[in-house]
């Protein structure tokens, strides 16, 4: 083993060191000064950005006997994950403090989850992937339960844990079948094995593949493995929902791209059918059920399922164009989702969660600026131009039509019209109704600034989407 390997893997190693540092620093901090942990965590994330920037390479480097890969894709996803974990911490600080759950563990577990995500993004073997996935999943279970006196949080955590464990089991079982058939755990070797011996492309491998897809679909929250998602989104405290809704989606994308595109790309014909069913069901169930929700966290949960449908449809194409579209969609969706949950946190205050749709009534009278920001986010999620969500959908639809599925594209746009309704309802409540709650918004200047930047970004990226699209195509091309 070469010492150069450690430089390539520096991001994860440094992050692990920083986590230990945060853990120790937090020990010496009492509850009144917990904001120190927050500051150290943010500093750690800034440092991570620098390390990532320094360690990145334009080429693909495989190290640690083929179990770890560093390429432009992992570089971009990791940077985005670091940024969104940082944004999550920033939005959450005031909420946690005012609700007496400002514990160091939030930041600590958040960073450990980030480590898991980064391992997933750089995984080049099934076991590395599984390791990262479990690190992330266990962090998420713990985060959901962070307010342990809260019954709904505890229930959500339990549900998440039990279902998540089953999904992990499925994934592991699938991995063992794939290993058994191809004789390798590393994605490039699996791909080579399938290419060399087409006879492997038969029932035993498909059997394992089906279990892999169950695991992946669960992590995405795709129908019919979506049952945990609305409950967890609703049950978790809003900062935790924000955490789950943002960066882990990037890790899920990495999970898909690494396993199904890098490893089992040769089986595209087999898995694309399964993905198609899952994606279309997600699109329809997510959009239709979201209409019936009155809890905005739950509504955004179902809307996530619908967005996952779009991402999976892009991946379903199996083309470079489709993968690039999925990457662009996921990145921009995470921007909008972080903003939307940030808005819910902004409207909440001590002992009061603005988690119902009616809590947004009359926001235009209370704060015209943040009503405008929320409107940007909602129109972006609905896919209305000139917001970036439109270009994300456009890329996916374009990839689907290029692959020859015009009828599917029609179904996708029609589902978007259904989806538009519940996003419009938020705008309707904000703009067309009188405020029931006239409390002044409490949030620090830094939170307000970042939330505004986050929301303006969906407009700015919609007006100049070209560079990010080009970047996605370059990375996956």
């Amino acid at each position, binding site marked *: 083993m070469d010492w150069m390997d450690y430089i390539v893997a520096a991001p994860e190693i440094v992050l692990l060191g920083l986590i230990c540092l945060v853990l120790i620093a937090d020990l010496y901090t009492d509850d009144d000064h917990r904001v120190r942990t927050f500051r150290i965590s943010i500093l750690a994330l800034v440092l991570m950005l620098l390390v990532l920037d320094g360690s990145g390479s334009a080429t693909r480097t495989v190290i640690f006997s083929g179990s770890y890969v560093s390429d432009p894709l992992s570089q971009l996803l990791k940077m985005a994950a670091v940024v969104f974990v940082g944004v999550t911490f920033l939005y959450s600080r005031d909420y946690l403090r005012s609700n007496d759950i400002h514990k160091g563990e939030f930041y600590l577990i958040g960073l450990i989850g980030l480590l898991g995500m980064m391992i997933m993004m750089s995984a080049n073997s099934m076991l590395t992937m599984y390791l990262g996935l479990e690190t992330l999943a266990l962090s998420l279970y713990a985060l959901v339960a962070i307010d342990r006196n809260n019954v709904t949080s505890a229930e959500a955590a339990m549900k998440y844990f039990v279902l998540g464990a089953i999904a992990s089991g499925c994934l592991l079982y699938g991995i063992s079948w794939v290993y058994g058939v191809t004789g390798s755990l590393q994605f490039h070797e699996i791909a080579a094995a399938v290419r060399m011996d087409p006879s492997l492309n038969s029932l035993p491998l498909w059997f394992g593949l089906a279990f892999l897809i169950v695991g992946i679909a669960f992590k995405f929250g795709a129908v019919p493995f979506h049952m945990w998602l609305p409950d967890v989104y609703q049950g978790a405290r809003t900062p935790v929902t924000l955490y789950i809704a943002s960066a882990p989606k990037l890790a899920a994308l990495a999970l898909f791209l690494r396993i199904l595109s890098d490893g089992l790309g040769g089986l595209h014909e087999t898995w694309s059918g399964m993905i198609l069913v899952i994606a279309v069901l997600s699109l329809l169930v997510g959009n239709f059920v979201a209409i019936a929700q009155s809890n905005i966290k739950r509504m955004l949960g179902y809307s996530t399922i619908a967005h996952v449908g779009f991402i999976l449809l892009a991946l379903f194409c199996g083309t470079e164009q489709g993968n690039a579209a999925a990457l662009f969609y996921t990145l921009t969706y995470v921007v909008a989702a972080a903003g939307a949950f940030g808005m819910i946190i902004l409207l909440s205050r001590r002992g009061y969660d603005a988690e119902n749709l009616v809590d947004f009534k009359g926001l235009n009278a209370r704060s*015209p600026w943040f009503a405008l920001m929320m409107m940007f986010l909602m129109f972006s999620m609905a896919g*209305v131009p000139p917001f970036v969500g439109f270009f994300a959908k456009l890329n996916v639809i374009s990839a689907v*039509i290029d692959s020859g599925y015009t009828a599917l594209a029609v179904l996708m746009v029609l589902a978007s019209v259904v989806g*538009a309704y519940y996003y419009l309802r938020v705008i*309707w409540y904000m703009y067309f109704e009188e405020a029931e709650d006239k409390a002044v918004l409490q949030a620090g200047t830094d939170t307000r600034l970042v939330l505004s930047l986050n929301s303006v970004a969906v407009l700015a990226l919609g007006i100049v989407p070209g560079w990010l699209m080009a970047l996605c195509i370059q990375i996956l091309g």
Partner: protein
Amino acid sequence: MELSQHLLSILIWLPIVGGGALIAIGDEGDAASSRASLMRVVALLVSVTTFLFSVGLYVGFDNAMSGMQFIEKQPWVGSLNVFYSLGVDGISTPLILLTTFITPLVVVAGWNTITDRPAQYFAAFLILEGLMVGVFSALDALLFYVFWEAMLIPMFLIIGIWGGKRRVYATLKFFLYTFLGSVLMLVAFIYLYGQTGSFDLFGFMAAPLSMSAQKFIFIAFLLAFAVKVPMWPVHTWLPDAHVEAPTGGSVILAAIMLKMGGYGFVRLSLPIVPDGSEYFANMMIALSLIAVVYIGFVALMQKDMKKLIAYSSIAHMGFVTLGFFILWSVSGSAGAGLGMTGGMVQMISHGLISGAMFLCVGVLYDRVHSREIADYGGVANTMPVFAAFMVLFAMANAGLPGTSGFVGEFMVIIASFKANFWYAFLAATTLILGAAYTLWMVKRVVYGEVANENVAALKDLNAREFIVLAILAGSVLLLGIWPAPLVDMMNSTIDQLIQQVGQSKL
């Protein structure tokens, strides 16, 4: 000259930036505060400046040229080969002028009547203006689509925030209906992008397409444009939206947004899928005639003034689509040109007349807070000046010679005579029906004895209202007596379009 190279961009971005500035400064204090007055003045200044720039468009426009003028082209989204590409011809220039002409009038009309959040109100109209000019000048399909959809956002808010009692229902219906219509157009655009490799509209026009592809694309376009026009049977959002919208919203909706549908047919459907258009032309003629006759009868029975004008808009827009799609039934390009020109003139003229009619209803509504015909009667006794305007616009709406309403309808009827006697016969019923529903409404509202105390207490037009209505009355008469400048502007473009449509793409 530097300016003329960016004139269209100025017309688009000046109002949008102005509107953004209004939002950024925001509302504070009540409508009588100095902040609110400042907002109004800024809004008026921006819209008038935009209009003055658009005069430059009129002056610099070369009638002899059939192609695009004032062209701007910049790369926008490189990986999708999308360009920020603008240009105007004889079809889009009159519509842009109409847009920049109507918007200041709407700003003035909303001057004191909007007391709730005036900055947001004026900002919405300014942004809407920029986006509408964008729709009329975009030469790249994706840019067109972005403007087309983005336009829904300000109108959604205008109806929803400042509308009447059932505003939420009306505005959601408006948004979802038009959104549903438009998304399939997007699919068609992406399909064409796959065929040609770019979103350039001229590339779309040049691309050969099979008959079945043309049929599908035509249907996709039809859904988008028919909802916008609106054509029977997808017109049902319009009466709701019109009734609930504030006066300014109704004016913009009737005067300009409905024209988007007609514009879409001429700019996209006819040149991109000529054979598909020919295939469906008879269906389009039938739908247009149903709109003219059936909706005319529906208008007759309305009790609400705004609803009546809304239905009359649908009937009048039926003439526009009739004029466009009669192309293949008429022998000789002169007749085809007549139908097409008639449709275009009708769009401009209807923009002025329907806008004016909605403003008249707005004047009454501001005083009595009712749109019911039954709540009025004998308005002429207390508001003689207003009554004169209202009667003039009603006559124009009924297509009286000497007003702009006559010119377009007459051209279309002549063209349909050349096609088929029965088309012309049915189309001509509008002269009777239009006169019946409009003049009957005027009779019940304006003439007769003073009906009740509300009417007795009415005050005549103030200077602000007078100026707005007088400007509109002047333009309706001017176009009625001397339509030549408008027709001259469109002629060479329409000739070229007809030639283009005549060439099969199979």
